[in-house]
């Protein structure tokens, strides 16, 4: 159970409005502060300007895809510590391995239950907090 005073901020980068809405609502219900971006440019701008504790990243995005965002975050020393959870419809193992190798904290494949998404994010944030 996450605590309300955690107030960690989660950035959701997801172009499908229904999925974006779902994820954002879930994290709100869990007491996180939520930022939403429907494309990569918006997402990257937000992560640079605001405090973000975790990024939930879709890979297939218009214009700039999720892979570019992941690379951008991990190659920037100021941002590289922010855990990135990939949330994608692509189930290929090659994609998973590549994402983890490029620094993703977790690779989640759609569809996913609310509980699994919540637990994964909580675990990563808790683990990070302990460090």
């Amino acid at each position, binding site marked *: 159970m996450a605590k309300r005073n955690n107030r960690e901020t989660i950035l959701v980068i997801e172009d499908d409005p229904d999925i974006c809405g779902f994820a954002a609502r879930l994290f709100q219900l869990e007491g996180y502060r939520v930022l939403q971006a429907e494309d990569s440019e918006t997402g990257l701008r937000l992560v640079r300007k605001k405090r973000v504790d975790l990024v939930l990243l879709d890979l297939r995005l*218009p214009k700039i895809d999720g892979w570019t965002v992941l690379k951008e975050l991990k190659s920037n020393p100021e941002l590289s510590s922010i855990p990135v959870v990939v949330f994608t419809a692509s189930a290929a193992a090659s994609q998973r391995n590549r994402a983890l190798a490029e620094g993703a904290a977790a690779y989640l494949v*759609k569809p996913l*239950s609310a509980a699994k998404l919540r637990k994964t994010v909580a675990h990563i944030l808790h683990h990070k907090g302990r460090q």
Partner: protein
Amino acid sequence: MEHKLNILTVDDDAGLTSNLQDLFEAEGYDNTIAPDGQTALTLCLGKDFDLSLIDFKLPDMTGVELIKKLTKLSPEMVYVIVTGYASLESAIEAVGKENIVSYETKPLNMGRLLALVKEVETRKRAEEALRESEARYRTIFETTGTAMLISEEDTTISIINTEFKKLCGYSKEEVEGKKSWIEFIVKADVERLKESHHLRIIDPNAAPPYYEFQFIDKHGNVKDIFITLALIPGTKKLWDRLLDITERKRAEKALRESERRFRQFFENAPEYCYMVSPEGIILNINNAALKVLGYNKGELIGKPVQTIYAPEPLSKVKQVFEKWRKTGKLRDEGMDIITKKGDKRQVLLSATAVKDKEGRILHSISIQTDITERKQAEEALRGERDRAQKYLDVAGVTLVALDAKQKVSLINKRGCEILGHPEEEIIGKNWFDNFVPDRVRSEVVAVFNKLMAGEIELVEYYENSVLTKTGGELLIAWHNTVLTDERGNTIGILSSGEDITERRLLWKRMIEYEELSKLKSDILSTVSHELRTPLAIIKGYSTMLVDYTQKLSSKEKTEHLRSIDNATDRLTELVDHLLDMSRLDAGLLKLDMAFTSISKVIKGAVAEASLRTPKHNIASHVGGRLPRVNIDTKRIRQVLDNLIDNACKYSKEGTEVVVSAQREGKELVVSVADQGTGIHAKEVNRVFDRLHSAEKRLTSQGEGLGLGLAISKGLVEAHGGRIWAESELGKGSTFYFSLPLDTKRGHNHGEEE
């Protein structure tokens, strides 16, 4: 021819002449009296006298002088000299005795004189008869057409005829009485003929009545003469008939020469020669045959011809023999002959029939050419060739040799199989004309000719098509070697070719298969991706609704449930697309056809799209009266929706999307035009490919499977129409599809209002 003697009495004694006149007239003789020599001479000019009685002593000349003069005028006349003196015998000698029959002294004994006259008369008559006979004889002698002569005992030629004159080249005067027949005989024959002559003179039957000898004429020409001789009865005169047989001799000689040559050939020919009777009996056989068969001549002559032929198959010998008897000839019949020792030899038998004037076969001339060694050599060569051919045939590749004139000089079994022709239909044919497809011929021939001319180096490997008997083409991979003669000149080319048609096809199929499986994998991956998105919504919201049911307001719950509902619609649509695609692929799509107004369909589609996409300005421009079309309305509507949605998707909000329709010939053409980004020229015709859309989906934005255009294409084609696009980057795209107008039925259903 009774001819009374004409008598001329010359005497100046009138009493005597009158007495004589009476005497002769009484006897029926014609007597003329001349009193002197001159009168006698004058009378002789006008008449022929047979006998003249002349007084030795005439008034104007002597009796001897008169006889001399009269002999000149009338040479056949005979004389009786009447004289009173017997002492003048010496003078009479000088006249010559021949014509003076008697000397009578005066007084004349009339009885004796008359007897004398009668004797003269008889002699004259006989001479006349002989003359007549001789004249007849001479006529025959002259006109017989055969050269003739009469010669005397001493070989002098007394008479010749015109033919002999022609034969010998001399005139009659040059020959008659002057030449001996011996002068006309060539030296070699002289003694023989002289001897026969002597024998004949002694006894006409002791010498042969005819000869052949060689005659030499005035100009030294030698002629072959057949001479028939006969003694004229009662004389030693020879009557000779000469026949010029030079031409006959020459012909005979030529014949003899020909016969000699034939015999020489027959005896010495390297071939085996036989003469065989129509009954099949060996009449003659030459040395070569005897030598090879191992018999001597006596052992074979008179034996049946079967003796020299191998007993098996005997029917062959009979058959061939019958063939010869019927046709009179044989040509290169393959036969086996058998030697005395029992060895077989192979011969080619040729024979002709020698026939008599009536056409009956006398015998055959048979010639056998021994081909045993040749056959053996051929056998060995064939063995060699067969072995080589086997190697060639065993080879799984085509082997072809071409000479410099482009003709096939060799091809192996595999090559024949590939081309579908038997070997004999290929060997000697022009390779390029017959076995290379038209479209590449000139190019290949040019290369070949340059190669033969030494203008280019050998192309050791190339791939080329050949033309098969059935008109098909096979792709062959060729490896080539140039063939050269001992001087190093290029004389042809040897190529081994491998049929790579199947392999090439397999490659193609493999590539296609790989592309297809990649496509399938891409589609699967896309499908999976597209399914997971709505599923994520359903899963996410449904679990949230369960997990957070206490915290959610009923209004919020309703929103989430609506999202779940939308997501299931998306899933349904995806499944429908997939099914459409697979039905189109399998040709299983069923169309529910009906004659429909296209204007209504377009208007309906535009109205609904305007609701779905309110930010675009969607309009329909359907001009004029359009015929009804036979379509599945639902499916054509699906195509329209897809094209309109695409147009909206790839163009900015607020821009126009125009849907139009118009008749073009036997088609109705519908178009959807946007003012969007447009499509690159290279891409414009690929947008209907599934592969293309799948690729696009994976690498870019947008939702859905991207199968929309591929499905639209399938649907339009299922209606018998076409679909295409025109586009310019930055200016927008126009998508068209056509629907065929069934003109007959279209009219029956009337035109739209």
